[in-house]
């Protein structure tokens, strides 16, 4: 039986948990809805079953609108995440329940139960109680129970959620077999991509209530339409490339477009996706089968059974964002080599050449900025900075509103709608997000669950007692996975940026990020190092490294050395040089060290009235 969803939405309050989803599921198909928790996938499933009714749109089963039918009338089988087997009934009674309700006579019922118990591989288990079964067995019984009355549609909600890996794999096989045997149209919801790949005839990917993509698993994996989809389905290396006729240029490498692929215009920026297994490692250039990317060195190599998972450092080839196997260093590529590919170097530190056998092109996307607003004028200022930066970097902006208490929710949402309207006048891609809870925590959750490049928050700056700053802004800037821009002042263009360098290192990707901002806003950069009296060589050396990175991005960089007490010297330079942005480092994750004690960052922050961009200092090894 076919299922079709036409523009269905479900609102809880004003938040759309399912947002205008349209989907066609064909008769006999096994369709997998894949998404992170809170993406709305379970709500879609519950709407098909009639347990939740949509606020907008139509649900059709076999071309008939069923919006007004109760769950009882829809004749669907539903397997719940917790199975919900009736504890006071035996396995046989559980399976026979739907038949008993349909007044099927005892003999036919027993035959059916017997048949189903065999189908799920538990013959002779009929007299047991659910509490006497293992999790995997309970799950099978739940499937049998949902199939007993021959429903037209089988719906499964995270059916393998609570099971160990081995059981999961067995149950996947068993479900696949049952589906093949019965041919019932099946929709399954899961957060696990291997469920989706192994089981789905087709899969759909959901995020924040929206259905982002549908298609055959291999197609979505190889040719995703967005970076979110690409990342959700597995490790991904992204690069920013520039089109050169039929080639894409990444750094110094040129990758030829495959035959027949549509070529964006020359000079246009694109995002290039290379999956770890699309890379190729060899000892010499002549043994590469694909296109040469660069020369590098194996940093790390892990045997993962039948293949090697490697981190390869290639100086000229820089990823545009974190990803891959989770390595934040963008000059490290995530590579997966299968042992069937013939001999390849595996030794740590070995010099290798890296090539790409294939790749995929996505439209280029600029900076993705998250700005938190709270209805105050400080939030207003932060928003202005955010709009400015998004505009300059051709990026996307997400505005986040957080309400701590239920009563504040309406007001916060109104503010969010206004802010979004204002931003949309200047920007094309503006999204809003709303969360309820503690502001700092919710901002951090947001940055962890979605890909952002920058977080912007308004603060009260130097008029605030340092304890106040210690709340939201401090926690976010110390714990967020990306740089944080704190804006205590009304908006002003960035013309001059002061980057304060101590001897402690920040991530190179963060330095590049500063370079990107400088380049896009046209600001000039001054690198500033304060050495305590007596001088310190190491800091000066690091200053030169940072300078090189920034200059490699085509920026003009001035360096200055100050001497004396650090905080005072930085503040003095900031005022005298009339800078529009200060860049400081702080230790990752250590709130106490960064803010509660009188660290340089916290002292500067509490006294300065300029926007401050906070980068992360790498924890000492």
């Amino acid at each position, binding site marked *: 039986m076919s299922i079709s969803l036409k523009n269905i939405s479900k609102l809880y309050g004003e938040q759309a948990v399912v947002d205008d989803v349209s989907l066609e599921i064909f008769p006999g198909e096994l369709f997998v809805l894949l998404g992170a928790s809170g993406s709305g996938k379970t709500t879609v499933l519950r709407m098909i*079953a*009639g*347990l939740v009714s949509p606020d907008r749109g139509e649900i059709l089963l076999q071309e008939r609108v069923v919006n007004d039918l*109760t*769950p*009882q009338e*829809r*004749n*669907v*089988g*539903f397997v*719940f*995440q*917790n199975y*919900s087997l*009736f*504890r*006071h*009934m035996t396995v046989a009674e559980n399976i026979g*329940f*739907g038949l*008993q*309700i*349909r007044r099927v006579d005892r003999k036919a019922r027993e035959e059916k139960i017997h048949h189903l118990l065999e189908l799920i591989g538990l013959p002779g288990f009929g007299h047991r109680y659910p*509490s006497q079964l293992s999790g995997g067995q309970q799950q099978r019984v739940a499937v049998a*129970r*949902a199939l007993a*009355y021959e429903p037209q549609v089988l719906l499964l909600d995270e059916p393998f959620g609570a099971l160990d890996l081995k059981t999961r794999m067995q149950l996947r096989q068993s479900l696949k077999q049952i589906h093949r045997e019965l041919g019932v149209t099946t929709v399954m919801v899961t957060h696990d991509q291997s469920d989706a790949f192994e089981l789905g005839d087709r899969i759909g990917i959901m995020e924040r209530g929206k259905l982002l993509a549908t298609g055959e698993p291999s197609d979505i994996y190889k040719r995703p339409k967005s970076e979110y989809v690409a990342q959700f389905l597995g490790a991904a290396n992204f690069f920013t490339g520039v089109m050169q006729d039929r080639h894409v240029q990444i750094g110094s490498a040129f990758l030829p477009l495959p035959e027949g692929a549509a070529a964006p215009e020359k000079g246009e920026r694109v995002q290039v996706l290379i999956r770890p297994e699309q890379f190729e490692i060899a000892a010499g250039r002549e043994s590469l089968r694909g296109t040469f990317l660069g020369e590098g060195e194996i940093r790390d190599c892990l045997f993962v059974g039948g293949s090697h998972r490697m981190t390869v450092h290639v100086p000229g080839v820089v990823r545009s964002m974190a990803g891959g196997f989770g390595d934040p260093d963008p000059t490290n590529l995530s590579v997966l080599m299968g042992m069937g590919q013939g001999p390849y170097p595996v030794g740590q530190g070995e010099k290798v050449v890296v090539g790409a056998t294939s790749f995929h092109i996505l439209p280029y996307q600029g900076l993705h900025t998250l700005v938190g607003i709270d209805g105050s004028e400080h939030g207003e200022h932060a928003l202005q900075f955010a709009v400015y930066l998004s505009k300059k970097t051709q990026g996307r902006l997400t505005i986040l509103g957080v309400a701590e208490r239920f009563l504040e929710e309406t007001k916060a949402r109104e503010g969010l709608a206004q802010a979004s309207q204002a931003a949309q006048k200047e920007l094309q891609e503006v999204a809003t997000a709303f969360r309820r809870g503690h502001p700092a925590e919710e901002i951090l959750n947001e940055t962890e669950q979605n890909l952002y490049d920058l977080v912007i928050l308004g603060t009260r700056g130097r008029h605030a007692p340092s304890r106040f700053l210690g709340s939201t802004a401090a926690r976010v800037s110390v714990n967020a996975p990306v740089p944080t821009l704190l804006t205590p002042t009304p908006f002003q263009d960035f013309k001059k940026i002061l980057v304060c360098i101590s001897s402690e290192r920040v991530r190179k990707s963060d330095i590049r990020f500063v370079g990107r901002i400088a380049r896009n806003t046209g600001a000039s950069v001054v690198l500033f190092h304060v050495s305590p009296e007596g001088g310190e060589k190491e800091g000066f050396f690091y200053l030169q490294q940072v300078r090189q990175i920034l200059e490699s991005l085509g920026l003009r960089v001035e360096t200055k050395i100050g001497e004396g007490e650090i905080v005072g010297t930085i503040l003095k330079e900031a005022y005298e040089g009339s800078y529009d942005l200060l860049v400081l480092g702080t230790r990752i994750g250590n709130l106490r060290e960064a803010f509660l004690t009188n660290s340089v960052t916290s002292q500067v922050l509490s006294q300065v009235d300029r926007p401050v961009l906070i980068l992360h200092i790498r924890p000492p090894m």
Partner: protein
Amino acid sequence: MNSTLPLTRVRLRLPWRGLLISVLFLVLFPLLIMPIGAIFVFATRDGLSRFIAALSGEAAQFALRLSLFVAMITSFLNSVLGTLTAYVFANYRFPAKRPLGILINLPVAIPTVVVGTSLLLLWGPIGLVGRYLDPLGFRPMFAIAGILLAHVFVTFPYMLGAVKPVLDELEVTYEEAAYTMGAGRLKTFWYVILPSLRGALFTGTLLTFAHSLGEFGATVMVSGNLRLRTQTAPLYIFSQFEAGNIEAANAVAAVLAIFSFVIFFVLLHVTERAQPEEG
């Protein structure tokens, strides 16, 4: 936490241990154990035949039967009322749900004599409602109906306390599973919810039964303590004791005590058996 401290409590030295255990026994013995023993000692002091004779008196028989009858009806009424209340509270949102939730547990805190008084002031011949019923010949007070009203009121929280946690714990998907399989609300309740409440209903019934059997304060107010008409067993004991018939009082008291023991041990057995099943 200071990790140098051992986690186990330092064991007291022997003289202390012996002393504290002795004090415990010295306190508990006259406080709990001896009074219960006294009933049986007095009841059987003059031999079993006197005991049986004291029990077979007309008033004693009536009082015991009335108490059992009232306890049974009260248990039944409250199992229906308690389940309904718990179901509504677990499934629906309605105005004043929170204050009502607090209110329904209030009977535990109100002195039973006050419950009796308030029932009289409501249903009695000159009560708020009773004065209009009286001319119609409907007099709930000083009758068995009045006793039932009082007992249902006083024991209501016991049934609710047994049923509500179990019902609250039942997953929502339990009901939803039944719905998707085609069962309507009634069938779902009958085949799925009610059977899950069996244990709780049994416990609640026993608790209600035991409390109803021993209820005194409210009963004495609303019943009028009319011999062979509204005199329950506890009232009989009190009346006989006051009249100096200690033997008669003791015999019925012993029977009530035995009932309580049986109920108590059944409950103990049930809860002990239920626990490993849960885990």
